[in-house]
């Protein structure tokens, strides 16, 4: 993979770039095309919002109900939400993530948000259909096969009901959360979704603070998860939105914070440009707290391998990934995956790097 870059001009720089000029890294037409495509989205600035305290199911290890947010008062007035979205737009937010507890239960608020802020994503269990005029990406959570879902989520026949709601819906991406106990079920779920023409991406269970249940990963389960992710990526390339670098980043024995340095305010005190300055996580009463602000605020940070977290933490680390062709290609694959999963209308390209590359400054395992 590196050979095609080795003929370009090089000049020694700092050790951080390992001798590669950025202009060399993007000299290959295929790389240049991908770079130009993804950088158009650098303007995205996200914040997240809990829409309601209600949910129609109860899942073990749920971020929302494991934490304190469930006790926050709920504001259901559409005018208050409209005003919030306008204020958010005014301070530069361009992308909203609507979550907790179950946003599909407040469709009128989703519409209000979409009217003011056209780009965003909704995290839902998929049991209630969200009206089509809400043109956000819709992330449908899957925790295993139907038997496992019933055990840990208390809902029967989840996958058929989710597919029934979102078959042929370009908004929908099914998000399979690998726990320590459902790794072997991922193939079955992916196969069903492939037959139904749906898209899937992968998440890794990241324990909420204080959680000590069976879902928590071990080094062994992370290694098995990585192998399964890569096998499914190879077996179902039209269905799986993922890359080798995604698999590496989210199954490494070190969590995302230790690998990349979390950029969210909860772990990042810096007010320099970036997430530390602009990101907020609003609760259902439309307040926010910098000390708790991250995409999944009740996660145990050292265990965080959450796909939403990585989508900001890894993508924001452009500078450190512009060091070597394979590392930069891997980062581009990750950003390409992020955009395909999160941004309406963005189509995933072919992955540029088809092998595991360690994150800058770390080993592969």
């Amino acid at each position, binding site marked *: 993979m590196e050979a095609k870059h080795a003929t370009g001009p090089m*000049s020694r720089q700092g*050790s951080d*770039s390992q001798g590669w000029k950025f202009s060399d890294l993007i000299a290959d037409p295929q790389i240049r095309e991908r770079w130009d495509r993804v950088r158009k989205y*650098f303007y995205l600035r996200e914040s997240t919002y809990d829409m309601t305290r209600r949910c129609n199911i109860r899942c073990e290890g749920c971020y929302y109900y494991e934490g304190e947010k469930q006790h926050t008062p709920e504001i259901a007035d559409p005018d208050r939400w409209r005003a919030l979205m306008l204020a958010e737009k005014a301070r530069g937010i361009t992308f909203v993530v609507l979550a907790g507890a179950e946003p599909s239960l407040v469709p009128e608020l989703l519409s209000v948000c979409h009217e003011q802020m056209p780009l965003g994503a909704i995290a839902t269990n998929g049991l209630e259909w969200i009206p089509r005029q809400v043109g956000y990406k819709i992330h449908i959570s899957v925790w295993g096969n139907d038997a496992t879902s019933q055990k840990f989520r208390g809902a029967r026949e989840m996958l058929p009901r989710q597919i029934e709601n979102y078959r042929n819906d370009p908004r929908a991406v099914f998000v399979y959360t690998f726990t320590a106990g459902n790794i072997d079920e991922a193939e079955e779920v992916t196969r069903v979704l492939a037959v139904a023409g749906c898209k899937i991406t992968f998440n890794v269970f990241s324990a909420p603070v204080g959680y000590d249940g069976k879902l928590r990963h071990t080094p062994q389960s992370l290694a098995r998860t990585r192998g399964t992710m890569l096998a499914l990526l190879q077996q179902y390339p039209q269905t799986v939105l993922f890359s080798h670098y995604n698999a590496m980043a989210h199954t490494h024995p070190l969590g995302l914070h230790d690998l990349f340095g979390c950029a969210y305010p909860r772990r990042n005190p810096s007010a320099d*440009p*970036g997430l530390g300055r602009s990101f907020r996580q609003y609760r259902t009463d439309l307040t926010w707290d910098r000390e708790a602000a991250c995409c999944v605020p009740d996660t145990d940070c050292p265990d965080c391998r959450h796909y939403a977290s990585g989508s900001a933490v890894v993508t924001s680390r*452009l500078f450190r990934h512009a060091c070597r062709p394979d590392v930069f290609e891997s980062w581009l694959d990750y950003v390409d995956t992020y955009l395909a999963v999160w941004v309406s209308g963005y189509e995933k390209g072919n992955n540029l790097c088809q092998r595991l590359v360690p994150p800058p400054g770390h080993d592969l395992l």
Partner: protein
Amino acid sequence: MAVETELDKIILHVAKIMIDELKLEDVTAETFDPDIDLVDEVGIDSMDLATVALVLRDEYKVRIDEDDYPKLTTIRLISEYLQRKLAVV
């Protein structure tokens, strides 16, 4: 007639790179205010700053630390940073 200093030259060059890389309109290297806040007043974000930092790393052949570039939020700050780096090469 004012004498153009080394810093002035760097400022002009950084402004040109900024305009080219970020496709800024209605401004030239000569009219770009070196003290304007690129983030709060021009609307450049952290990814743009990273991109510009990579191009500057190429152009000036200096090491730019990842922790440094987010603080370089005006063209003058960037240029002074580069001048310091060039002085120790």
